[in-house]
């Protein structure tokens, strides 16, 4: 379980950039074969400046953070996730992100931990990801 003393802790700002190769690996894994994720010309024809990221891609940004409050937390799973966009994210573009632990709630042998990932483009907020994970005690 997460120590409540970590409530409102932040990871610090990290620069995040998705390459074309990283996106290909992701979309192929989920079986997403739409050419808009492969061909910049098609993306531009649809009104994007470059190939857009699927709305769900920022869940992978968690790898860029090492939240100290999750250190040694072996078992947790996703309870809910909300992606909110002011504008779409693109490949080959630098974004700045920071992860914050915003709430903790206990329920019997479970703990729910709410995280907010804020993504900025040159200090303008472009997207927010709210992730609630549930941590569970081992059954004895």
């Amino acid at each position, binding site marked *: 379980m997460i120590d409540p003393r970590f409530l409102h802790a932040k990871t610090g700002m990290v620069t995040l950039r998705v390459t074309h190769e990283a996106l290909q*690996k*992701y979309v192929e894994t*989920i079986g997403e074969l739409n050419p808009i994720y492969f061909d910049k010309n*098609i993306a531009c024809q649809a009104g994007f400046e470059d190939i857009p990221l699927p709305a769900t891609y920022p*869940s992978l940004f968690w790898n860029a953070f090492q939240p100290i409050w999750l250190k040694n937390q*072996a*078992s947790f799973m996703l309870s809910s996730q909300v992606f909110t*966009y002011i504008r779409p994210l693109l490949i080959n573009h630098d974004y700045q992100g920071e992860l914050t632990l915003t709430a903790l709630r206990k329920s019997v042998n479970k703990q729910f931990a709410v995280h907010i990932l804020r993504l900025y483009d040159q200090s303008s907020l472009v997207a927010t990801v709210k992730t609630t994970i549930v941590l569970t005690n081992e059954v004895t």
Partner: protein
Amino acid sequence: MAIQEFEIYISEKLIDDYACVSKDVNPIHMDKISARKLGFPNRIAHGMIFMSIAHKFITPLIGKGWFVSMQEMKFTSPIFLYDTVVLEMHSVKNTTEIQDFRIIGCNGSGMKVLRGKLVLERLNLS
């Protein structure tokens, strides 16, 4: 009106491939014994698998000048290795400015295991 359905079979390959690309190798996803220690009968599929696949419902709209302004999913029950989940998407609003969808997912026993929303807005091309 249900506009689209996807059936997703949770194979070892699907979980392993998603773990590889997401680098989420939490034992609860990767190891049956670890999952059992927590009271679950089998490995649990990554929730993001379903959110990512649900996104495929609307990808054709992304190619027509729309972008996702909000995508939400709540998991009401764990989804296990070898489960089959049927995702069903319904349109609740469809205007020239906004498209709003609801998603539900049921497992092979007919139990609702997830629900979600997807909202798309027009790209500002100016």
